[in-house]
């Protein structure tokens, strides 16, 4: 099976033996503290280190405004719990990260998607959504956005788009929840400034070590204005008492004693080769009518199938052909996305990616033949989508 479905980072290139030795030393020298309860906000030395990491994306922050979480996924949950009541509206890109949709749903919030283009979420559509919802008496609590190499589309917001979004947040008094797990995994250019780097007032920021180091430690963080931070700490304490202390000691040691910036360059080279393998294989194997994004970083390509195909219905054929993907419907709260799929290039080797794309091309072609055989040109019950909600246009550069 070639799985182009999951989003697991490839951590095989980490210097595991050296990390193991460092962790052994950590236990010997600081085990009593590292294996004890810790601060609900997270250890001060860890928060100091995180300010250095965020500086790579031009974020100037004080360690006091950081709350360490059990992965940024918990940060997402804490922020939602602090800000939202059942029935509130959260705006999100169309499509958006499935794990965020799950968290919002679990907190009984309604997700309203806002269209994207090749430069990210479209400001005029965002403005329209906010005005329309508020006019209808709905409480819009925040915009959830992944500005860099978005999951699932791989699309990044341009610097101009980021500035527009921040200005719009002030114009309509809207909080932005910026989720940035992939920002440092830029493959073609230097990182753009985070939204939080452009505005400290309207942006709550979620960061993570899962992609730049390793997800098993489960360490992420929230950077939030002071008043919000206090509520987050209280919520964190009631949920877990404190984020994983040992993991914080281990990651702080990694940041102290290893060339973590150099390791990110190693990761970039590895992911670039995989991204390139996928982007080179797609035009060779995909049938006419297929479109896909051209991510400049991160883990994902977003594929739009030829008219009439349904990625969920096609999945059994793909599994039979030993290739897996994530159907596009997973990334919409409103049932759209049946013509789309997310392809991950993060975990399989370039050779396996090429083989997977080849198999996928054969699957799609066979599905087209079967549908043509039975005279099915358009999937029944498929909602007709407005142009801007079809998903991001492919980057032709």
């Amino acid at each position, binding site marked *: 099976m070639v799985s182009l479905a999951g989003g697991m980072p490839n951590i095989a290139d980490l210097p595991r033996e050296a990390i193991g030795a460092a962790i052994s030393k950590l236990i010997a020298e600081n085990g009593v503290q590292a294996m004890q309860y810790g601060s609900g906000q997270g250890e001060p030395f860890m928060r100091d280190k995180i300010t250095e990491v965020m500086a790579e994306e031009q974020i100037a922050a004080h360690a006091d405004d950081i709350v360490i979480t059990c992965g940024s996924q918990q940060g997402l949950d804490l922020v939602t719990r602090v800000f939202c009541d059942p029935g509130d509206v959260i705006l999100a890109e169309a499509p958006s990260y499935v794990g965020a949709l799950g968290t919002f749903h679990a907190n009984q919030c309604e997700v309203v998607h806002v269209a994207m283009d090749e430069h990210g979420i479209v400001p005029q559509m965002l403005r329209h959504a906010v005005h329309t919802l508020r006019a209808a008496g709905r409480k819009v609590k925040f915009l959830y956005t992944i500005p860099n190499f978005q999951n699932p589309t791989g699309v990044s917001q341009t610097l101009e788009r980021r500035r527009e979004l921040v200005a719009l947040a002030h114009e309509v008094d809207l909080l932005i929840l910026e989720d940035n797990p992939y920002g440092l995994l830029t493959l073609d250019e230097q990182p753009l400034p985070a939204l939080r780097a452009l505005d400290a007032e309207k942006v709550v920021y979620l960061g993570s070590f899962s992609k730049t180091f390793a997800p098993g430690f489960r360490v992420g963080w929230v950077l939030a204005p002071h008043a919000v931070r206090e509520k987050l700490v209280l919520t964190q304490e009631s949920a877990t008492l404190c984020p994983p202390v040992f993991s914080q000691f281990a990651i702080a040691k990694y940041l102290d004693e290893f060339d973590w910036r150099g390791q990110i360059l190693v990761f970039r080279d590895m992911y670039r080769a995989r991204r390139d393998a996928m982007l080179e294989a797609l035009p060779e194997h995909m049938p006419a009518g297929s479109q896909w994004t051209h991510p400049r970083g991160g883990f994902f390509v977003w594929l739009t199938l030829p008219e009439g195909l349904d990625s969920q219905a096609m999945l*059994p054929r793909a*599994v*039979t052909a030993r290739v897996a993907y994530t159907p596009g419907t997973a990334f919409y709260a409103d049932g759209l996305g049946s013509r789309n799929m997310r392809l991950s290039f993060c975990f399989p080797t370039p050779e396996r990616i090429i083989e997977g794309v080849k198999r996928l091309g054969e699957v799609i072609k066979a599905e087209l033949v*079967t*549908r043509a*055989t*039975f*005279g*099915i040109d358009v999937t029944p019950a498929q909602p007709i989508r407005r142009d801007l909600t079809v998903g991001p246009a492919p980057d032709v550069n």
Partner: protein
Amino acid sequence: MAHTGPIVVLAGGLSHERDVSLRSGRRVAQALRSQGGEVIEADVNADLVELLSGLSNPVAFPVLHGGVGEDGGLQQALELLGIPYVGSSPEASRRSFNKDISSPLVAAHSVTVPPRAVLPHDMFRELGAKHLIKALGQRFGYPLMVKPARSGSALGATRVNEPSEMPQAMVSAFSYGDVAIVEEFIVGREVAVSVVETDGAPQALPVVEIQPNSGIYDYNARYTAGETRFIAPAELSDEVAAACAEVALTAHSVLGLRHLSRADLIIRDDVPVFIETNSAPGMTETSLLPLAVEAAGLDFGALCRQLVDAAVK
């Protein structure tokens, strides 16, 4: 004589029913552990041969559904490796898994089966789907059933109520393979009869009746707790229950199955109609064989252990 080596419960594999298999495997492993002895849970992947080769006197208990577990491939590999296993031979597994082969074999022994047509995708392409669909409707009438020739857990199976639903149903079936079965839809009470064979003599367990809340015993109804009401033993007359057991034993015997199987039947006008037999029945908490074992007053763990002992005889 009881087997003393490690028991390797094989579950998972790369099939559409992987998740179900993992749940079945976990349940069987727990049941076997309750009987003592070493139990190892293993997936069917590139590490398996090395694992089995490193064990002393192992016996395999495959609990794989669909593809690799039921088409005889795994059993063939175990025979090549010289490892005894619970379940049917490669040939019998293949016969059972291919519904287009198993059904006529069972029907030849005076068992009622639904009238059906087995058609490859290419035939629809060559002759024109419109013409064949029309002929199928005229032959079987509506509603009818469309399903893949090689699949389990009702995956790719659709009840078709009218001609306009046929194209989508055919596409769904062909998502699981190149051959589809179109058959008369049998209206009646849906039941299952499990057969176990621990001492060389197949024994039919009590009939279990299936009443899905949605009216359709699809994948969701099969594996979501509370979605289906099971009645075990089914409330049937002795004659009908005996007829069901007879059909299940006939299928088990005619197809050359071994150790365990489960026949799926529909009772129409007190006559059991044979739908299919599974050589690797589900063992999850909502599966039919464990329910039948309980209804028979047997201990599931003890039965699994007896099957292991039978495999090494």
